[in-house]
């Protein structure tokens, strides 16, 4: 098993982060193509693409705790979180590769952050600490790079208290790891 990885890509980070949190040893090989395609997991003689599918595959490995699976009756939000990560990834690449600095936060970023904030805020009032329910799951791992790296798009986090709360509790998880642009927890 091996990850075709680009260290600065947000979707690749989601997979490395997930492996670290789940206690999976995941060797990586640097592959510049991953900046475009996102992470690719070489496994069982084949290739698996898409951060959500890869993370779900990791949760099924024998060494991974059942806690990373959804509880009975819990809503699956992986597809929503993956689509949000794709959006952020696209916007972030556009901002980081732009020839000239852009002025202000683009409206599409505000829309994305609002959607995430609404969901986290409602969850909190319903005593649902994680997107995935009582324990963090694949959807939470996909969400973290979005909200943490939103700083690359200069999103002011004072406007999003539920997102701040999510970032704080996520960073306290055992096995949490950073990437450039995501500061260490203290």
């Amino acid at each position, binding site marked *: 098993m091996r990850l075709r990885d680009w260290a600065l890509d947000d979707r690749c980070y989601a997979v490395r982060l997930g492996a670290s949190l789940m206690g999976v040893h995941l060797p990586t090989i640097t592959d510049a193509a991953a900046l475009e395609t996102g992470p690719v997991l070489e496994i069982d003689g084949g290739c698996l693409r898409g951060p959500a599918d890869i993370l779900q595959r990791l949760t099924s490995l024998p060494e991974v705790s059942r806690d990373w699976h959804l509880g009975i009756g819990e809503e699956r939000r992986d597809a929503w979180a993956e689509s949000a990560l794709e959006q952020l990834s696209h916007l972030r690449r556009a901002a980081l590769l732009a020839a000239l600095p852009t002025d202000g936060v683009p409206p599409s970023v505000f829309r994305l952050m609002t959607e995430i*904030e*609404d969901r986290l805020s409602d969850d909190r009032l*319903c005593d649902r600490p994680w997107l995935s329910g009582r324990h963090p799951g694949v959807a939470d791992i996909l969400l973290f790079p979005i909200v943490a790296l939103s700083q690359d798009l200069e999103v*002011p986090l004072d*406007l999003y208290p539920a997102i*701040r*709360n999510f970032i704080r509790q996520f960073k306290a998880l055992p096995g949490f790891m950073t990437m450039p642009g995501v500061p260490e927890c*203290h």
Partner: protein
Amino acid sequence: MTDWFPLALGMDVPSETAAPARLYGKEIALWRGADGQVHAWEDRCPHRGMRLSFGFVRNGNLACLYHGWQFGADATCRHIPAHPELRVPGTIHAHAYRAEERAGIIWVSLNEDASLDELPDEDAFGARSILVQAPLASVRVALALPEEGWKWQEDCLVAAHEPEPGLTMLHMASATLANRLDIAARAKTTRDHLEALNEKVPA
């Protein structure tokens, strides 16, 4: 004129954490010690200007993320890690504002003489601080809020502040714990309505 501004819900600044806030562009660090007390300081370390809201709370002090200078509840510097032997002079301090927690909301005044009488004295439970992409003045008009200060609308306390021109943070607290979800839903409807209205206003 009111001196108190609602900057956040109390629940959004948990014990032993720091959070950023802005008031008309002025950056303010909110933080809460283990004793539950909330503090509001200028969001700038007097050492190198780093934002203190990036810092962390340890032993009742707020520590700057940059070089770890620690400031106590009275805002004076207590410890400089690079000079552990140094008795830190009282002249080194963060700039503190007044902070009060009432009705589930953290209120901050830049005026030291602000009267507490302006603040709500009923109990309430924070439901939602929500971003509305519209200027505060038009939000106040649309919600029939007074020109300044806050208002009870039935079982919901409504207050607002402007982090930067054109953006409003609407803070809503519920008179009862059970009603918070309803009020949070009302906050979202209100936001969507206000943003739709704002888009219709020609720039």
